[in-house]
């Protein structure tokens, strides 16, 4: 079973502060993804990556940056957090041809 680990599990941030969410996968998947989940919206794609050094904009990238320094690690960065970014964030790996998506346990972020 693919292992995807997110940290932190919970985060409280102040408006205007910087937040970094981290994700690590141990299955050597090329593709990694960051989604946010809000009631009534399902999961929406923020950024994704095809491999180390690659980042691509998803469907709702505004206010977020991403970094993929290695095959294993993919970070989501909120440079200036806003209350509208309060959500549950999920990282996933896989998703290539014939590949299932495997998710981390999620990070609950509250921006006050």
């Amino acid at each position, binding site marked *: 079973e693919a292992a995807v680990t997110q940290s932190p599990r919970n985060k409280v941030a102040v408006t205007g502060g910087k937040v970094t969410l981290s994700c690590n996968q141990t299955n050597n998947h090329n*593709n990694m*993804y960051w*989604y946010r989940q809000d009631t*009534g*919206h*399902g*999961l*929406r*794609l923020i950024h*994704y990556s*095809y491999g180390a050094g690659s980042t*691509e904009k*998803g*469907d709702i990238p505004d206010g977020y940056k991403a970094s993929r320094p290695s095959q294993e690690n993919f970070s989501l960065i909120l440079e200036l957090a806003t209350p509208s970014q309060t959500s*549950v964030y*999920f990282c*996933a790996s896989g*998703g*290539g*041809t*014939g*590949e*299932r*998506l*495997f*998710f981390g*346990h*999620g990070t609950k972020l509250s921006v006050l």
Partner: protein
Amino acid sequence: GDQVEQSPSALSLHEGTGSALRCNFTTTMRAVQWFRKNSRGSLINLFYLASGTKENGRLKSAFDSKERYSTLHIRDAQLEDSGTYFCAADSGGNYKPTFGKGTSLVVHP
């Protein structure tokens, strides 16, 4: 509009009964996956289909790319099947799975 339309948004079942969840796609999809979000908040991958049907225990899924839909059938529902079910599909090329808005399933005694 949304590429993935999931229905119903909510479903209530008695233990031992069954039902079907459905996702309709507005474009041709390469593959579909089904997930369950459990009470702990974890997203569990139930199925990956590029075509045809797959079955796992009391769950069965089908995907028809040409007709642009996928279904997830649950039979003999148990209390532990409660949760939110999501489908996700991608149209190929750039491997960007798009999710439906989910079906909230409650199984009660």
